[in-house]
């Protein structure tokens, strides 16, 4: 075969590979002007070769992607707004129900107490015991309701962010716990803590709840060791609260943060199981994470993240959408 025929055969072979390919194959100049456009490109993009040849690639392709991204971004914003609205509704409902439950509970509590006081001596011992049961249950339910109210209120509260020294919050929380801590041997080990951009009132509560739990579950120990400090995990600052108490079974680690979830018996350790739910709610409001590690009888550690000063102003819009907007300009 002559050279010319060889070249023609090679060219047409290459051309048929391009024409029959399933993928879109687009020939462009270095400036992005379209020179060739194969049948798959026509199929995928919906433009014929005549429509696109000689035109810059950016006009044809990015707007479509831009539309897709814009739609995805809009959907995400919409879904986030719906989720927030649903959350707010749930919190308002929880608040209003808990609030309405208080008065009837007070009445049950009151009348059972008055009965016990005024008529106790004349009562059959069994009857008195049952009445005592009613009274105590009403009291417990009162605590549950107050705790639920507390949780709902925390959820509804607007964050007031300011740069806060976490050391000061821990100190205040420890001072508040001194009554519980008296007559006990407690080794408080508080390391240096960073500054964070947060709502000081709410984060103080996080420390108060975690430290109160630490105090409670180290009661069986002759000498309680409670540590508060910071560490770095994946480049992010993490605060931890560690104790040498009775710990818990890691199989139930996820359940612990649920409302009214308890991993110990009421007779052994008092509480309604809302403390950690409140901690989680507050940390999530601060766009942080909270988790725990433990070993039965060896103690436990609670970790949480907060944003360092300056990062709390991050937009909630996803970065993908943000970039797409910038590119389209």
């Amino acid at each position, binding site marked *: 075969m002559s050279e010319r025929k060889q070249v023609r055969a090679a060219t047409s072979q290459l051309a048929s590979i391009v024409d029959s390919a399933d993928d879109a194959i687009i020939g462009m100049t270095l400036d992005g002007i379209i020179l060739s456009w194969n049948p798959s490109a026509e199929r995928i993009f919906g433009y014929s070769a005549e429509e696109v040849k000689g035109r810059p690639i950016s006009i044809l392709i990015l707007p479509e992607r831009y539309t897709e991204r814009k739609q995805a971004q809009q959907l995400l914003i919409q879904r986030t707004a719906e989720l927030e609205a649903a959350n707010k509704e749930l919190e308002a409902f929880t608040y209003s129900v808990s*609030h309405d439950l*208080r*008065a009837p509970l*007070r009445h049950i*509590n*009151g*009348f059972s107490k008055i009965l016990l006081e005024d008529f106790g001596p004349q009562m059959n011992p069994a009857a008195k015991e049952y009445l005592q049961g009613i009274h105590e249950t*009403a*009291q417990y339910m009162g605590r549950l309701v107050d705790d639920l109210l507390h949780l709902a209120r925390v959820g509804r509260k607007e964050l007031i962010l300011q740069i806060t020294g976490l050391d000061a919050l821990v100190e205040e929380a420890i001072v508040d716990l001194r009554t519980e801590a008296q007559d006990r041997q407690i080794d408080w080990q508080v390391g240096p803590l960073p500054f964070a951009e947060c709502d000081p009132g709410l984060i103080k509560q996080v420390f108060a709840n975690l430290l109160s739990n630490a105090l409670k579950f180290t009661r069986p120990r002759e000498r309680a060791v409670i540590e508060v400090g910071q560490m770095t995990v994946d480049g992010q600052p993490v605060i931890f609260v560690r104790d040498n108490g009775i710990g818990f079974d890691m199989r139930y680690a996820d359940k612990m943060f649920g409302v009214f979830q308890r991993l110990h018996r009421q007779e052994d350790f008092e509480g309604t199981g809302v403390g950690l739910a409140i901690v989680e709610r507050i940390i999530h409001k601060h766009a942080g994470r909270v988790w725990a590690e433990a070993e039965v009888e060896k103690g436990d550690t609670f970790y949480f993240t907060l944003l360092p000063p300056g990062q709390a102003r991050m937009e909630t819009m996803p970065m993908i959408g943000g970039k797409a907007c910038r590119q389209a300009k």
Partner: protein
Amino acid sequence: MSAGEIDILLVEDSSTDVDLTLHVLRQSTLANRTYVARDGEEALEYLFGRGAYSDRGPECPVKLILLDLKLPKVDGLTVLSAIKNGLHTKVIPVVILTSSREEKDVMNCYDLGANSYVQKPVDFDHFREIVKQLCLYWLRVNQPPAVAAFSAKQRRRAR
């Protein structure tokens, strides 16, 4: 409809809460004469000698008002406002005794001149302790002005 000395005016619409509060007040010997108004309108008529109480004089011998916020007919805040603006009534200590602890309720009450704001606890022993303390403070420890002299001074100032 006695026009005599009344220690406490209890303004509360729930009959059960009235029963419980009266029980506690009876146990505490500090509050011997308590009058109960079941809604805002009755409270105002009693305090200002209007309507059903027009036979009462303008001077008000009530030493302490325990006021709930959620009241039928005329609500607690309106009653509070009327009390704190009334010539003879503004000097009477008003303790808001209510279920709510909403920040805006607390603010509004203090804004209108409430002397104290107390949330009714669910626990009865706690409730009893609080009511006893309130009575002890406002009826014994606190020094009120002589009502007649105070009213006279207000009248002179108003001219």
